[in-house]
């Protein structure tokens, strides 16, 4: 046994040692690891040089390793990333600024455009507001949040009804993305970000796990992409697990909807503004507007000039003594030519002073009444109480001209142009004139008053009847007198007769029981005087005087005796009066009525009373106050 072992040892001892060493190395992980470490770099290099299978194999574990490392050692990773984060941020800021500058440039371009100003004016909005509207002529109509790996739709939002199957659209868009990327990207990096189709623009914003694809109508500004990128970044930040684990189950993805719909709330386009608002149209409109303004200006100017000419013509034609023949306008000045009477007033003083109107008139004699009157006044110089007027071709001289003026008128007037005849005309008398003339013609008793109103003379107070009766004749020639009223006038005779009648009535003659006059002689004489005076006044006034003596008795005595006694007493009184000189023919006696009451003695009732009357031809008793003769 040992010999065989020895032989083996002699024959294969060396190989056995090597085999043992090899076995030990293979059994010991440390040594195997050291061996692999020795060849690994070279192996990797060779494998990578041959094909991508190693890279494919390494991709998943490397990704997982990085993810794990980020989770476990965030600070270390952050520190490692720090050097590249700075440039990345700077690049991002530069991109954002680029977008901003582009937006400002767009705005400035449009602001400087005259057509924009015109459009703003046409739209009736302030220019800045209009520029903002124009700068935001786009609308995000559809938004797709697409899972990057599967191409499946995670969420969708739309402002318009979506015609196609959105899942299919998402998948197709992803396929096209891949197609473009695989076909044209040299190193497989980059992605399709923009596609333009007519008025639509398709924008894709790419994130690690999802892609935000927006269908936009109009031309979106660069800044919108930054906003979309921000939304997508937020989604990745807040819902990374959801995106990574997405396998087609949309349950739970509702939380993403607000972010997606935020994309739709980007500024909206005003559709009617987008149509037919091209620059050529605007230029045409502007041209038309300018033409309209120019034509309008010329028309208005011409119309104003014509209106001014017409106004000047009317003013001149309305002016007496001026005959305008032609008006012409040159360099803003209206020149009027024609004839002007030297007595005509010059109109348009302000316009002439300002140099806007020039008057070039030849002198002539106008026969217009106003000018003829003016000419007559200038030639005749009438005194203040004389007025001149023209009726047809007749010069009427009113007032009370003196003889020398009459002479002058009769000499000069017929030679004045426009005057063919002269007429002197009195002015109608005034009420004062009439009153003066009436007093002059009729005289005025001190007891009477005279007034004239409206040509009617009214006489009041009292006056002799003869004066009153002669008034109409005396005033017949008073000019302007339209009537005489004497209703309020009393005759002096009537006044006197009433006065005497009153006195007579107050002077009874008393008797004793028998038929004896108990009055003293003086009382009878007084009564007789009054009656005689009455009779004289009445006769002087052509009146018929009458005296009635009435006898009275008291209640005592027989009634038959008393009546005799009453008549007897009246007769006794008449006789006494006749004895005093009163003409008997005017006296009548009468027995008064029997005294009423008791049959007692009353001396005051034993009397004779006298009453008088004066009657004219018309039968009026002048002592009767009611009749007021």
């Amino acid at each position, binding site marked *: 046994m040992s010999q065989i072992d020895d032989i083996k040892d002699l024959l294969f001892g060396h190989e056995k040692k090597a085999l043992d060493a090899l076995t030990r190395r293979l059994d010991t992980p440390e040594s195997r690891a050291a061996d692999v470490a020795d060849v690994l770099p070279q192996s990797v290099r060779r494998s990578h040089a041959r094909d991508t299978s190693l890279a494919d194999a390494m991709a998943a574990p490397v990704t997982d390793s990085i993810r794990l490392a980020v989770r476990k050692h965030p600070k270390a990773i952050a520190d490692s990333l720090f050097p590249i984060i700075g440039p990345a941020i700077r690049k991002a800021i530069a991109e954002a600024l680029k977008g901003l500058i582009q937006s400002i440039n767009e705005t400035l371009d449009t602001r400087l455009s005259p057509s924009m100003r015109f459009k703003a004016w046409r739209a009736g909005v302030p220019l800045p507001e209009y520029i903002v509207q124009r700068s935001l002529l786009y609308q995000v109509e559809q938004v797709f949040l697409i899972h990057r790996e599967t191409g*499946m739709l995670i969420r969708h939002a739309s402002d318009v009804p979506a015609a196609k199957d959105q899942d299919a659209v998402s998948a*197709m868009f992803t396929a096209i993305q891949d*197609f473009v990327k695989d076909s044209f990207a040299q190193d497989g990096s980059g992605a399709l970000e923009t596609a333009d189709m007519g008025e639509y623009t398709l924008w894709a914003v790419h994130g690690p796990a999802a892609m935000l694809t927006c269908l936009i109508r109009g031309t979106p500004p660069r800044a919108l992409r930054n906003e979309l990128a921000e939304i997508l970044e937020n989604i990745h930040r807040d819902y990374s697990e959801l995106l990574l684990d997405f*396998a*087609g189950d949309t349950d739970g993805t509702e939380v993403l909807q607000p972010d997606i719909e935020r994309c739709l709330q980007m500024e909206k386009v005003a559709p009617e503004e987008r149509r037919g608002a091209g620059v050529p149209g605007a230029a045409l409109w502007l041209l038309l507007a300018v033409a309209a303004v120019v034509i309008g200006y010329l028309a208005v100017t011409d119309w104003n000039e014509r209106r001014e000419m017409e106004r000047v013509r009317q003013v001149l034609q309305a002016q007496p003594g001026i005959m305008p023949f032609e008006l012409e306008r040159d360099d803003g000045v209206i020149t009027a030519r024609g004839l002007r009477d030297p007595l005509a007033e010059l109109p348009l003083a302000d316009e002439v002073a300002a140099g806007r109107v020039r008057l070039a008139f030849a002198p002539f004699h106008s026969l217009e009444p106003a000018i003829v009157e003016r000419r007559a006044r200038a030639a005749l110089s009438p005194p203040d109480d004389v007025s001149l007027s023209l009726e047809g071709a007749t010069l009427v001289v009113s007032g009370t001209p003196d003889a020398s003026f009459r002479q002058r008128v009769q000499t000069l007037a017929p030679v004045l142009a426009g005057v063919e005849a002269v007429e002197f005309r009195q002015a109608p008398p005034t009420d004062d004139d009439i009153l003066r003339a009436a007093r002059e013609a009729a005289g005025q008793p001190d007891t009477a008053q005279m007034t004239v109103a409206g040509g009617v003379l009214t006489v009041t107070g009292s006056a002799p009847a003869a004066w009153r009766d002669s008034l109409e004749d005396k005033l017949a020639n008073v000019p302007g007198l339209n009537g005489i009223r004497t209703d309020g006038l009393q005759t002096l005779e009537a006044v006197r007769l009433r006065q005497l009648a009153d006195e007579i009535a107050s002077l009874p003659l008393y008797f004793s029981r028998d038929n004896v006059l108990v009055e003293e002689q003086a009382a009878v004489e007084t009564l007789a005087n009054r009656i005689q005076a009455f009779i004289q006044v009445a006769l002087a006034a052509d009146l018929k005087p009458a005296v009635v003596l009435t006898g009275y008795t008291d209640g005592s005595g027989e009634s038959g005796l008393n009546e005799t006694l009453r008549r007897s007493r009246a007769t006794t009184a008449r006789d006494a009066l006749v004895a005093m000189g009163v003409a008997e023919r005017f006296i009548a006696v009468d027995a008064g009525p029997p005294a009423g009451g008791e049959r007692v003695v009353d001396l005051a009732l034993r009397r004779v009373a006298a009453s008088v009357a004066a009657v004219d031809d018309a039968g009026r008793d002048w002592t009767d106050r009611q009749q007021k003769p």
Partner: protein
Amino acid sequence: MIPTRKICIIGDFGVGKTSTVARFVHNVFSEKYLTTVGVKIDTKTMKAGDAGGDLKLVIWDIAGADRFSAVEFSYLRGAAGYLLVADGTRRNTVDIARRLCAEAEQRFGALPFVLIINKTDLTEQWEVPDGTVDELRSSGMDVFLTSAKTGDEVETALQALANKLLESSGP
């Protein structure tokens, strides 16, 4: 919203991929996309799974395998499963299907799929032996013999795939 799953239809040129699903899906885009972009998307909403809830399949129809390179394979990324299509009248298309299946698995891991062997209406020209089909089935594949022309078994195949999608993504 209804849960959605991305599936792809892959198979050799002319096996009837587009025709197979055409009458069962909601056609959103025209077929010219296949020749321009190399892919065409359709959708189909159906009941699936034990609960019988709605499921929306977003079906990526990828252009034929004669152009099927790394570029087109990228369309398979993110797919929850796929429909593998072969032509029963061309035996080699089954082999191509196998190869494609293997490549997909290599690139994206084991994904649920069903194999469709199409054109059963052309019985006279049928080239795939029953043994092959049995062999495929015994290897764990779900194999359906379909006719795009008559629609035979197509719906069943899609339903089976939908159920598998939910199984694989279920808890």
